[in-house]
């Protein structure tokens, strides 16, 4: 797949950092504001997709990206399960929110709610990676086959 014109490339270059930052913000503030792991993950993958669409996928190795996407997807899920297991070993119950019960933090504070922001982080990684893998499989792979 070829890249697009220089205008698109430049504008996407300018946009990408702010989109990434917004995605990170939504993931990290998942327990306080609307959004969270899934919505933030979708935003995060948006900037990768934008980059590939603007610059084209000629120079990047597809198989490598796909493997990394599925690697981080697996890591995201395993992290999530690890958080659940943390509750099991600390509190005796699956998904027991040990940190929040020990250090509740004040309400609407960034460092509150214990394991929930951590789970959001894991979900954010997982969703971004999974969507990126879907994008690569559906769009890039197909276009390359035809041209």
């Amino acid at each position: 797949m070829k890249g697009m014109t220089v205008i698109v490339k430049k504008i996407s270059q300018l946009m990408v950092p702010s989109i990434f930052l917004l995605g990170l913000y939504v993931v990290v503030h998942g327990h306080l504001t609307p959004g969270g792991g899934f919505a933030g993950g979708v935003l995060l993958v948006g900037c990768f997709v934008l980059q590939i669409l603007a610059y084209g996928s000629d120079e990047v190795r597809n198989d490598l990206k796909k493997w990394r996407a599925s690697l981080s997807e697996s890591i995201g899920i395993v992290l999530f399960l690890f958080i659940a297991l943390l509750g099991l070993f600390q509190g005796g119950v699956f998904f027991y929110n040990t940190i929040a019960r020990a250090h509740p933090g004040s309400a609407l504070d960034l460092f509150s709610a214990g394991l929930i922001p951590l789970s959001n982080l894991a979900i954010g990684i997982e969703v971004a990676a999974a969507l990126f893998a879907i994008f690569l499989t559906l769009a890039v792979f197909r276009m390359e086959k035809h041209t």
Partner: protein
Amino acid sequence: MNWIPAFVAIPLGAAFLIPLIEHWIKGSSDFLTNAVTAFLMGLTLSFIHQAAQTQVYFVGGWEPAEGIPFGIALVVDGLSVLMLLVVNSIAFFATLYSVKYMARYTDKGKFFTLFMLMLAGMNGVVIAGDLFNMFVFLEITAIASYALVAFGIGSEELEASFKYQVLGGTASALVLFGIAIFYMMTKTLNFADASRVIAATGVTPALLFVSVLFLVGFGLKSALMPFHAWLPDAHPSAPAPISAMLSGVVIKVLGVYTLVRIFFNVIGIGTIPALKTVLLSLGVISMVAGAFLALGQQDMKRLLAYSSISQVGYIIFAFGLGTELGILGGLFHLMNHSVLKSLLFLNSGAVVYETESRDMEKLGGLMHKMPVTGTTSMIASLSMSGLPPLGGFFSKLIIIWASIDAGYPLLGAVAVIASIVTLAYYFKLQKEVFLGKLADAFQKAKEAPVLMCIPMICLAIISVGLGLLLLDPVREMVLTPAVHVIQGGVDYARMVLGG
């Protein structure tokens, strides 16, 4: 430590560890998957002795306040234990079989990932204590099985899977629609809590609407007769171990178990008078039509798929009777059919593995070339068509007896006729595949590899031994608690929440 969440967590964790480990150590996925399924089977066996009591597990430690649950509840009672037993043992034999069988496909790691996801989903459906989680796990199972049906990515597989997805997805949409109305009506999704609300409000038009949506949705998932169109395409197209899982377990967990749980334990079978009649007629139609359609098939796996429709019809018919004997027969037939149909699909997989053909006109006389496959298939066919003293005979006998006992002698006679047709098409299967003259093309066929024979032999031994389940001490341990759960109906709420 309480092991209930392990039924979901272990296969789910394994599903995502397999691609990682497989990337660095080739071939490790075989070992890992079999270790996981063997462990889960052992875990289920350890649950049998406590099947009689209802165990509730509140995830995250969110206990109910003043008798109103607001966390995620996982419930393991007699019925769940029985289903877990069936699911995990069939899964173990299927993974053992896959080690050799799936070597012909590429990317075994992905196959086992999807398999583990499907297993996690099914275990989740069985232990979920509320509609929300049941729906989520149902969808995990469904999506994994869509992908597994198309694992060969031939045109036929893709097409069958597309059809399966469209009908399965419609079913899920209807179920979600039902859940939405259900929530509007009861303001809760927990089974136990909702059943109390329904008992207080009685029958309303909304409840009837929800029942119809659930009936169609789960009917589509369990391939009852008017909703069966996807099954004869999807089940034969899948690789053999997956056909065994789909026909043996998935339709029972996603369709039969969910129907029984919701209609018997939540809504209450007595609450809506027409419900029994609907279940009975759906059962009888699938039973008869499935049997006659199976008779006309030339494709070996398609015949088995139609047979599944017919046998699920028997199970639903038995539950529709609503008597204790009927429920016992239904559960017993469910176990029998799971074991037998998985065995038959594994046999067909062995035949395909050696001959590359599923066409019964071309096959024939394989008994001498493949004695293990032939013998085990013969045992399964005989048991399925109800030859005494094999397990299948007793379960059908109980169902027919129960239908006469409940005042439906005519339907009992129909069940006998369907059973005779069953004998006919299994006889056809045996005659055209294993007996008769060996075609020239298959002179070089030999017995399947040892790793594929072992699960078949084990399943054959289990299927012969299943008749022992009716003996008093064993029945008290496995079947009776499950019968009590279903027979108890809306008493389920008291068992889960206490009070």
